[in-house]
């Protein structure tokens, strides 16, 4: 396994947000993850790559807490994490986007992003329904935050357009917006560039980098486009048949023989 000295240095300085220790997971006879360990550091962009069926999405689901590992532990901010309910995952500061877009297609962009603020809304049903005092102030605050995200993602022109009428690339952007609305510490992106043309990919890359830089969000992304992965990630972890075969700087991973074998097959 590669781990250059330079990497070690970087990592020592950085604060660890999550540590996954010797995690295994299987579905019946299928071993999806076998004894995988992974550390996630604050403010980094970590890419998880691997051939189809390597266990990338599983890994993401373990990180987000949707799956609970059969063996091994997940340590989130220094504490061991047990089984968690989905709304508690969001409360912990983890947000994600999906491989297939999962937006409310009949609602406008603005409303979709506003749903990302749901957990941060504190007023009771009565106040919300009557739109009284506090509820009103709260609505203004949340709307302001949403507008900042709209501005950030440059989707002002479609603010009030129902999502179903938007092109795919923009829908992906809206989904990112909704995840950002929760002000997550850790953002999980499941194939954010899939199915996009070059221009849309370039835009998305810029947004991912900007999110990382401006909000200091830690980002984990699964991506198949190697150009994108090598360009934007600080660190790359490679999975193959449920095992982690490499973990390091993009330039090191690229030249790693095990990774090359996994992708091209061994002769």
């Amino acid at each position, binding site marked *: 396994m590669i781990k250059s000295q330079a990497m070690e240095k970087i990592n020592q300085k950085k604060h660890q947000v999550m540590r996954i220790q010797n995690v295994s997971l299987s579905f019946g006879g299928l071993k999806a993850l076998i004894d995988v360990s992974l550390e996630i550091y604050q403010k980094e962009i970590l890419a998880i790559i691997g051939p189809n069926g390597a266990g990338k999405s599983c890994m993401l689901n373990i990180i987000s807490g949707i799956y609970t590992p059969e063996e091994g532990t997940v340590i989130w901010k220094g504490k061991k994490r047990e089984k968690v309910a989905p709304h508690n995952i969001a409360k912990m500061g983890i947000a994600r986007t999906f491989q297939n877009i999962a937006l409310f297609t009949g609602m406008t962009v603005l409303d979709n992003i506003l749903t990302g603020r749901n957990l941060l809304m504190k007023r009771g049903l009565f106040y919300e329904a009557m739109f009284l005092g506090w509820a009103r102030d709260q609505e203004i605050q949340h709307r*302001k935050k949403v*507008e*900042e995200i709209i*501005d950030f993602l*440059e989707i*002002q*022109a479609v*603010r009030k357009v129902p999502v179903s009428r938007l092109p795919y690339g923009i829908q992906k952007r809206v989904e990112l917006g909704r995840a950002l609305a929760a002000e997550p510490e850790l953002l999980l992106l499941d194939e954010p560039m899939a199915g996009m043309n070059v221009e849309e990919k370039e835009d998305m890359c810029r947004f991912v980098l900007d999110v990382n*830089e*401006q909000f200091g969000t830690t980002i984990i992304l699964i991506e198949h486009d190697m150009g994108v992965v090598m360009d934007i990630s600080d660190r790359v972890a490679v999975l193959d048949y449920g095992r982690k075969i490499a973990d390091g700087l993009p330039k090191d991973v690229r030249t790693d023989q095990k990774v090359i074998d996994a992708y091209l097959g061994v002769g």
Partner: protein
Amino acid sequence: MSRNLELLDTFSKILRDNAAVFANKAAIREKEYGIWQTLSWNDFYNNAQILAYGFKKNGVKRGDKVAIVGDNRPKLYLTIAASQLLGAIPVPCYQDSAADEILYILDHAEIKIVVVENQEQVDKVLEVIDRLPKLNLIMYDDSRGLENYDNKSILPLSNILDSKDEVSSSWVDEEINKTSKNDIAIMLYTSGTTGRPKGVLLSYNNLISVAGKACEIEKFSVDDEVVAYLPMAWVGDNIFCVAQSYIAGFCVNCPESRDTLAIDLREIGPTYYFAPPMVWEAMLTQLMVRMQDAARVKLWFFNYFMKVAKNWGNAILDKKKVPIWGRLLYGLGYIFVYGPLKNNLGLTRVRIAYTAGEAMGPDTFLFYRSLGINLKSLYGQTEASVFVTLQNDGDVDPETVGPAFPGVDIKISDGEVLYKSSGVFKGYYKNDKATKDTVDSKGWVSTGDAGVIDSKGHLKIIDRAKDVGKLTSGKIFSPKYIENKLKFHGIIKEAVAFGNNKDFVTCFINIDLQAVGSWAERNNVAYSGYIDLAGQDEVYDLVEKAIYEVNRDLSKDGALSASQIKRFLILHKELDADDGELTRTNKVRRGTISERYGELVDAMYNKSKTCHITTEVVFEDGKKGDISADINIRDLEVHFSKEKAA
């Protein structure tokens, strides 16, 4: 409101007065985070003072030049106001310019401070900063993405605007009173159809006298609204959105972004609107394309009432006699079609609309007028502080650009239009030779445009004087005249005609992707993109039909019947300002085009049926690439002219 512009002879003086007279009325608005944020005249003046003081502390002195690069933003308009308050000269640049173009202007104008909109523009300036020894400060409005720039010479404007500095009013008054009407108010670089841009120096008197008169004629008041969306470097923006807004006190609205312009227009509902013919034409094309998809009943209503509008609309707008049933039908049409349509376009409240810069198809022109939009043509130049001619209410001929603007004298000498007025510029910056070539000793300015004055005293522009040439047969050849006729067809976006010193006329065509794309969809013509669509036989047929009509028109036109188009081709790429083929104001650069596409021009005249060409293109981020295509050339039947038939 008429104001004493003898006393208020500089913009700073008007602004100071506005802060007292209009106080809390809106001066400028910007949509930010989805909400229109308003700055009153009072706020605007206060901010201008703070900014001016900050500029002074940063070393800006009287007579220095301050460059401005960006979209229309209140803080950039404030920069203009603050510079003028200090007696410095603002130099707005086209925001789309590539780094090289910016370099030329910043260097030529000896800029020390450049104020830009955002990161994109900062990067552009940084790219060439090594070659600009005099530039020592870059200031920006929008800080997004700039947080981590570690460079002491890059500062946010908010540093100054949010500072708690007390600006003494006596200092402000002193600075304002130092400036007088013959000082230079602004320097604007021409877009440069040929050669390098030239810096046009305009004085306060130039701008204020012209804008004041236009305000008087159009009766602008503090209640008018205008949307500022055309480049700040363009003289029109400085008249319509700065000078006239100062004088009449109306509010200037800055759209949220370029993409939201249509939405913002609808929200603001401007009463005063300017758009070049291209924008009007694009609006009409889009409208027609969308109507094709409408339900049958709606389409029938639309077609019927558009016929009604064609019959009576213009007469009603011109306050002519119209039979009662004509008025009734038009009234119904207003309820069913024109009203909702204007609302959709954001033009409901438009009281005065202008177009200029290029010729506009009479059909397009009359279409808007028939909806009750008071659209008028004007003819103007940067060197004239815009207005040379302006059409009068109720006396609008789509073929002309109207009579001379009050206070302007026009004459035709050797076919070229000359004028003289109080708006005539002070000269080109550091280019006396060009100034002398343009303005004669008696103050007449050559426009470089060939034109005629008709019996009613209206000016008709034919072409750029130097572009008018002759065919080998000796017959006159006017490329612009032919191109305009072509462009009046919705499917043709741009055309370039050749024929000077040739046996016959040929032309390059750029199709309108939206119009032709929609046509292709309805006619089951599959295509993957512009190149593909442009090369299809069906599209050639479509264009041929349009040219056939143009040729028929030309054949009836005596002297120009020899200018019928005999061969044409559809270019494989759209002409683009980034490739230097158009100016930043979208005018065709003939020289560049005939150089770049020399092979194609040759092929037009050597009987080839196809020609292979590879063209280098520049992408928006400055990267270069090649596109190549085999282009078909098509021959056309020409119409016999009356002369020959006789």
